[in-house]
């Protein structure tokens, strides 16, 4: 698909999902239009876009539920047109969880395991435990709350130890603690070496948990890349001194260190991308960033300037997302 190493491949050395010109039309209406996307292996990738942007249709095409009208793609290196070759490596939760109300949670998982050709049921209790349903596995699905149903959907997606998880709004119906647990769960999937593609409207959660983003609107990709690339470009370091009269001296001190502070009222702002160590941006290097901030603080103190604020202000994904969507295709 791509000649040489693509941007996604450079990140982790492999691509879990890639599509080229993927299109889905219903009648004359295009739901997904010439979508080119890549998800590097081993990342938690956020798939975001407004309602009706074509996210779920794209996910359905990746899973073989919906036939593309045009274009091609690969999932785990296998052609999109042959889902039977890759579904064994993929766990999915698409839209709302779909289970049999008259069966228990555990029996529902057994049904999914049977469909996946997995005869060994012994891991199922552990899966239920992992998603917080350890003590409710034998209860009928119809007695579950919305959040519990969602958790069972995640457990079902984990059956067969898949390399790739495709989750459509997994935090739907979860309470705040459930959302926190989901965040931890998603990170743990990535730590285990799995790739996670998660569609969500909860941008704050996406920002916290995703290393990679694909943003679509009207069926077209409008952004793809590391999360830091989208939100990092607007990060700034804000400095305030105890006495506003010290600001010119602080500005000069920072200038001598090769930085370009800007005055903004009674504070100075430095673009975070200016903070580097051996030519490497520190925006995503927490240890390096802490060291750099301590250095600035020490230098200010040595110049008899007392800092009362030294804060990294991060742009919210929501703001960048709104700007992207409002700005149209990129």
């Amino acid at each position, binding site marked *: 698909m791509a000649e040489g190493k693509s941007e996604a491949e450079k990140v982790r050395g492999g691509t879990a999902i890639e599509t080229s010109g993927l299109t889905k039309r219903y009648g004359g209406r295009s739901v997904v239009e010439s979508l080119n996307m890549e998800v590097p292996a081993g990342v938690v990738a956020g798939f975001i876009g407004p309602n009706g942007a074509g996210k779920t249709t794209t996910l*359905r095409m990746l*899973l*073989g*539920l*919906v*036939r593309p009208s045009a274009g091609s793609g690969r999932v785990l290196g296998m052609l999109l047109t042959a*889902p*039977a070759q890759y*579904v064994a490596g*993929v766990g*999915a939760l*698409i*839209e*709302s*969880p*779909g*289970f*049999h*109300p*008259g*069966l228990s949670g555990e*029996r529902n998982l*057994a*049904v*999914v395991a*049977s*469909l*996946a*050709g997995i005869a060994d049921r012994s891991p199922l209790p552990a899966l239920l435990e992992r998603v917080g349903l350890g003590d409710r596995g034998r209860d009928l699905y119809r007695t579950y709350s919305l959040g519990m149903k969602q958790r069972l959907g995640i457990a*079902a997606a984990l*059956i067969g130890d898949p390399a790739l998880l495709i989750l459509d709004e997994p935090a739907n119906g979860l309470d705040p603690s459930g959302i926190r647990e989901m965040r931890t769960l998603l990170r743990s999937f990535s730590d285990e070496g799995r790739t996670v593609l998660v569609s969500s409207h909860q941008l704050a959660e996406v920002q916290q948990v995703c290393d990679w983003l694909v943003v679509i609107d009207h069926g077209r990709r409008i952004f793809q890349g590391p999360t830091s690339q989208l939100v990092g470009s607007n990060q700034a370091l804000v400095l305030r001194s105890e006495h506003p009269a010290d600001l010119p001296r602080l500005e000069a001190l920072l200038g001598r260190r090769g930085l370009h502070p800007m005055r903004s009222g009674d504070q100075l702002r430095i673009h975070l991308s200016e903070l580097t160590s051996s030519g490497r941006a520190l925006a995503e290097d927490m240890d390096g960033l802490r060291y750099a901030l301590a250095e600035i603080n020490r230098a200010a103190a040595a110049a008899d300037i007392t800092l009362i604020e030294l804060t990294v202000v991060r742009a919210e994904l929501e703001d960048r997302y709104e700007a992207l969507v409002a700005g149209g295709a990129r």
Partner: protein
Amino acid sequence: MIRSFRAEVLKLRRRSVLWGVGVVLPGFAVLATILGFVNARDTAASGTSVIAGTNTTLEQLAQAGGLTQGFSNAATFVGIIVFVLFLTSMTSEYGQGTLRVALTRQPRREGMLAGKLFALLGLTAAALLGAEAVSAVASVLLAHARDVSTADWFTGAGLAHTAADYGNALLAAALFGVVGTALGVLLRSTMLALAVGLAWIGPLEHIVQLSWSGAGRWFPGLLFDAVDLGGGDVTSYSRALALSLAFASVLLVASGISFVRRDITS
């Protein structure tokens, strides 16, 4: 197909289904047996009854096929139950979103449909076996009550009749099941598919039959009944079987193509 079969067995192996099918089918068979013996006359009445088993004589019950006469007479009711079971089993997959989950694990759709059908047929076969057994027991008890000779029932011919009745009942049930599945796949909505299917197989065919004698030779529901009864006055067994298989094959192919090709969008 094996995966889908196993998954379906897991779904069917629950108390409500086992009790439902395991009690209702034998229950209808016993009811039809009781009615057959209670209403049996000493001599045949003139004319032909539209409803199977309501014009039986005690002499007919004493023949080789008498043991499972009631079981055969329950055909239409059993067919409708099997039709509803297969249909709702399919439409509920759409309605509950379970088909979406299933296909993300088993994308070979034709295999999935076949596995599901075979599992349901297996359950039907077991339930029919139970129904025939309890119907036979009821027949023996009722034969004593109505002084019907059972001597021919346990001969080679009698047992062959019993086996043939079971085979025909299973065949008819399978035909009803295939139609139910096909309607479920094509219409996807439980209410719509039930309304269309039950209206056609139930009142429509029988109303038309009252005014058009050819209905029994052409209408699928009536042909399936004829298969179950081993043929009748209106149509021969071989014709009923051939036409029924043709109907079922067309529906099965049409629904199979639809199932394999249609996008899963809900």
